[in-house]
């Protein structure tokens, strides 16, 4: 009798759980069967998301070639190299120039054929797909924009600047190396020290610092000089602008590449070539809010109205990269 009662009480949830597991097994098996003839591409979350370029690129690729492409989310761009060890893919998108050496060290990549690799530099395994200079975005009327790196330490920016931590953010790392390269390591740290009263927030990622900026908690944020294009075209808000620095701005370039252990290697090469087509470049430009590699793609869009500042070349970057651990420790200890 007692046992009956107990069984009756437990039978409902148990039946539900069995049904659930059975259904799931059936659903996942079907999915696994469908995956063989698909090109697998890994990228970071905002590229893969519904609001990123991936869904429209997949549609265009299907329309042009009749082939399917499945984008896989690596979470952060920094985790692509780790996640692709578990999920072998045919191509990756989202490596930047600061991670290329590391990428070559940790993974073997396929040399791109001459027809595709004409724009590939510094190594012909990595194909640039978009780029933008990092810089500071401000809203017109709120502040007088900074004119140079050293201007950021001006008292008029007290509690106004949103930055990203170089240890967890690519633009943050680019800004950090930009300062150290421009001013030298010692002077650079003195400058960063002097920035303390002006920094409203140092976020772990771009979304944190840019969110603080758009919500009015900061008056200027480290981002890309292309960021105003989003506000102009999607929000019809023309108050957003990028400050232009007299010394120029470092550029972040995003690359696509094919790992050596690709399964559909020729199709992956075609896909990389497709990424540089004007149609695909237009999608990447609009959805990733970055400049296309081909300048003609910008014609007739708000991207032609954006300031494209002079490029700042970081000459000591290889040396700074080598000293990364030590420099990051100094950054931590600084208490910005």
């Amino acid at each position: 009798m007692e046992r009956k009662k107990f069984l009756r009480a437990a039978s409902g949830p148990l039946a539900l759980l069995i049904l659930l597991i059975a259904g799931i097994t059936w659903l996942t098996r079907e999915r696994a069967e469908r995956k063989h003839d698909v090109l697998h591409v890994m990228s970071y979350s905002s590229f893969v998301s519904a609001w990123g370029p991936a869904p429209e690129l997949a549609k265009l690729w299907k329309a042009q070639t009749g082939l399917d492409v499945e984008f896989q989310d690596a979470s952060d761009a920094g985790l692509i190299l780790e996640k692709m060890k578990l999920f072998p893919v045919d191509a990756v998108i989202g490596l930047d120039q600061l991670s290329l050496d590391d990428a070559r060290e940790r993974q073997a990549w396929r040399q791109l054929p001459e027809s595709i690799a004409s724009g590939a530099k510094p190594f012909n395994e990595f194909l640039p797909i978009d780029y933008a200079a990092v810089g500071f975005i401000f809203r017109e009327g709120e502040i007088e924009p900074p004119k140079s790196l050293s201007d950021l330490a001006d008292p008029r920016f007290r509690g106004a600047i949103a930055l990203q931590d170089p240890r967890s953010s690519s633009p943050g790392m680019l800004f950090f190396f930009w300062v150290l390269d421009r001013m030298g390591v010692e002077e650079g740290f003195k400058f960063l020290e002097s920035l303390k009263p002006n920094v409203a927030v140092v976020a772990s990622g771009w979304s944190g610092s840019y969110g603080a900026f758009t919500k009015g908690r900061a008056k200027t944020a480290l981002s890309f000089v292309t960021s105003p294009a989003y506000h102009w075209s999607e929000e019809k808000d023309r108050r957003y602008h990028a400050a232009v620095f007299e010394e120029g701005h470092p550029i972040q370039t995003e690359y696509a590449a094919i790992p050596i252990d690709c399964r559909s290697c020729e199709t992956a090469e075609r896909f990389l070539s497709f990424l540089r087509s004007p149609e695909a470049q237009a999608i990447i430009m609009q959805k990733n809010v970055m400049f296309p590699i081909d300048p003609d793609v910008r014609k007739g869009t708000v991207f032609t109205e954006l300031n494209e500042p002079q490029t700042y070349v970081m000459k000591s970057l290889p040396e700074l990269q080598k000293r990364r651990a030590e420099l990051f420790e100094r950054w931590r200890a600084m208490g910005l």
Partner: protein
Amino acid sequence: MPTLPDSSELLPVLWFTFGQAFVSAGLAVVLGFLGALGLQWVGVRLGPRSSRTAEVMSLLPNVAPVLVFILAMFRFAPSLKGFAGVVVAHALLNVGLVSVALTRAIQDKLSGMADLAWIEGAGRIRFLRRVAIPLLRGEILALFLFVFAICFASFAVPMMIGGTRGTTIETLIWQKIRLGGDWSSAIGLSILQFAFLMALAFLLGREPATPIAGARSGQRILSWAGGVPFLLAPTVFILLTLLENPFAGLSQLGAGSAHSFSELVADKLVASFFVSFLSGSLIVGLLMTIAYLDPRGVTRRLLLGAVAPSAVITGFAILFLWRETGTATLIKISIGLALVATPAFYRLRWDGVLSSLRGQRSIAETLGASRSLIFRKIVWPQTIGAACFVAGLASLWAWGDFALSRVVAEGDVTLALIVQSLMESYRLELALTLVWILILGSAVTFFIFEGAGRVLGSKSQT
């Protein structure tokens, strides 16, 4: 082979991690105690339905993305930064959870005594000092350890509010994996994290709990209107931030997406329900298995000190073991969340619940009852309600999780991941609009588990 970074790199991080976690947990418990008195007041004055609503509302900071809370902090306390800022933020984030757990403990353990003391005319402070606090010492220590473990593994709050010195072990683990694929250091740090919490659990020990009281009700002597602001202040901060620009999110609706908005949300809503429901159910299963096995001695201490490794390591471990994608991803996320949450909730409440049944178990064992008979007749009827309540709390977390889900998932499979993606693609306002759906969904799941606990508990007892 796990290794540790140089002491010059590790020690300051360890010191900051421990310091902020210790003070945050202490403050959260103090504020949570006051919040619990406020929650009792709501129950006594406004009735059980209002009390349940206040409970769910106070848990809102555990559902909303942490960035929303940080934005609220920047708005209401812009000068509160550094160590003090981190401590206050952590305490406010956890005060609701502590209040709810303490209220349950008060109702479980002090009902009869509190009613008697009230009738006899005992003063509130005197009752608190002489009866309530000494009897709740075990629960208070468990809650301290629970919040300590959460703050110890915190990532975004220390970094955004604490400045660059606000580096925790969790941040260091992330940095090691992200910047050089240095898994040996990451695993070494994770082991250190585990050992640290284990040592603390052994050090703090655990008071044996007193038996659960029969009737559960709010006690007048332990109700205090002044505790309500402590209970609901973090929720109010978040709601005010969400309401800051209520129509801006709607203007971003559908813009720039390859799919229709309703198509995206409907799909992810079902997935989020699935994940929260499955992870909650798995937690019930795990807790009831623990209840069946009734760990004691060293095993119990090990469970009390157990803590899941960092989200990124747990995520990669799951991916390493099971690489199927699609619907399997939702199962992997649910399993991961259940594994991460179970040790935490064992510390928070389950150990106390099991300890309160030890006397009954011993008598039954002496009389010759088998383990399964004891489980069916004594343990299940008295614990299923508490297990479902804990599962409800865990399901709230599951709705808002993106740390583990992001590593495990191959795309935006849940609503929380959509919210994060929107934040990362300039659409913060739309993300904040979606947070309302997260809140609503999590409240529904919480009530489903709580209701299931009541039904299963009363069915088993009749």
